[in-house]
């Protein structure tokens, strides 16, 4: 059971809180404290909009322990509109409707559970744009 480990990542998992580089201004998700681009310190928090597009995807049939019950499921690389690419599952979709470049939006879903009695881990997933405020 990895309680504190998931707890400490809540801001990122629930709200896509990343960082922005003080020096070159690049947006970072996942946050990494040292800028990926210019190696300057990057501690300023930045909340991403949760909008992005599909960069690559795979539907996983051979699932690891903890994920067997949800297989097959689709994991994607999502290019956020602010720049970074994030790894996340896709939800509320069929694989047949997916195409690279399609617009996606972030939702909060169950990522996994630690067995029947352990904690439930929640976090970001993405789905094809459905929300009205985005479509407008």
């Amino acid at each position: 059971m990895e309680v504190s480990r998931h707890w400490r990542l809540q801001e990122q998992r629930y709200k896509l809180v990343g960082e922005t580089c003080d020096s070159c201004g690049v947006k970072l998700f996942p946050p990494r404290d040292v800028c990926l681009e210019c190696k300057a310190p990057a501690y300023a928090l930045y909340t991403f909009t949760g909008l992005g597009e599909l960069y690559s995807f795979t539907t996983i049939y051979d699932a690891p322990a903890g994920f067997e019950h949800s297989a097959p499921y689709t994991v994607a690389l999502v290019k956020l509109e602010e720049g970074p690419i994030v790894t996340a599952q896709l939800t509320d979709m069929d694989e047949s409707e997916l195409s690279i470049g399609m617009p996606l939006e972030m939702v909060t879903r169950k990522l996994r559970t630690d067995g029947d009695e352990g904690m439930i881990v929640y976090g970001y997933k993405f789905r094809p744009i459905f929300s009205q405020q985005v479509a407008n």
Partner: protein
Amino acid sequence: MGEGTRSPLPKGGVKGRERNKHMNDVSIIGIGQTEVKEMWSTSIRHLAWYAIEAALDDAHVSQVDALFVGNMAAGQLSNQMHLGALVADFAGLRGIEAVTVEAADASGGAALRQAVLAVKSGLVETALVVGVEKMTDQVGSSVTAVLSSTLDADYEAIHGLTVAGMGALLMRRYMHEYGIGVEEFAHFSVNAHANGADNPLAMFRNRIKAERFGSAPPVATPVNLFDAAPSGDGAAAVIVTSHERAQDMVSQPIRIAGSALATDTLALHDRKNMLHLRAAELSAQKAMAAAGVSHDDIDLFELHDSFTVMAALSLEAAGFAAAGEGWQLARDGAIGRNGRIPISTFGGLKARGNPGGATGMYQIVEVARQLRGQAGDNQIPDAKIGMAQNLGGSGATAVTHILSNR
């Protein structure tokens, strides 16, 4: 002896040329390997010992000064850590310096790199390197979960990404950017299995047909069973010492002409251009520069074909093909034993099998056999210089070694 069979490796003629030129280089004086397969009755310590015993016999030595164990995940797969001491003890080498080196499935190559550094520094005279992985102490989804822990746990594995899924994300993007279909990747597996068929130690010795590629069951779309290298138990070992000593000890020392390790972002999503394996490129360039060789000098390339797309990307990163054209070498037959740049000459990860942290050491042993002229049916004619590149996961660690038989 258990199910792991050692390959007897006869010795060739004396070769004493260029004796002084490479005085400070490190050379291989002994090699050993077990079969790659599911060895239910063999423990991790036995696996390591079988490969070590073969290497010691091959080198005609009984004592070494240091042991480097390349292993990926014994702590999770066999609940056994502290392999340096365990293996040294079990092999009757108690007292020597011994540590484990871990870099996912680049552990084997990384362990050799540490041995090269140790011998080259002069602090260690003779070093033993064994890559060992016991994959079958656990089965099914538990093993998949352990392998997933070589990804970024907080940002990749928690989303259910697997190592095969990582390969699939790369493959889908590759197909998208370069406009090719899945069928183009089949040629890599056809080649690997054709070579594996002649390797008695290979996990899979069946030849496969490109036509049947499309009907293989999916592992992580678009990666199917024919794209993905199988996990198996295995161990491979080499003994290294200074080139100067090596020439006095064995008839065919295999010189490590170049050795380099480089890293990239652990997570795929953090790479600016994920189809460019930057660490693989860096380590290949450094190793080639150190060896003073160009692409034309390299007679064979044992690359890390954990997935067919990784073979294409490795060929590109190492400079054998331009970006987006690695797959064409497979289509055009350039990767075959008689091609321009033979790869996976004993079956590669795909057919010989991928025993995790041992894989990199199999590559080294296989290149050494080619350069000694002891590759049997798999022999690349007149092979003089061979390259081995061992990747960790998606290439976050890349270790390149260039071996020479002169």
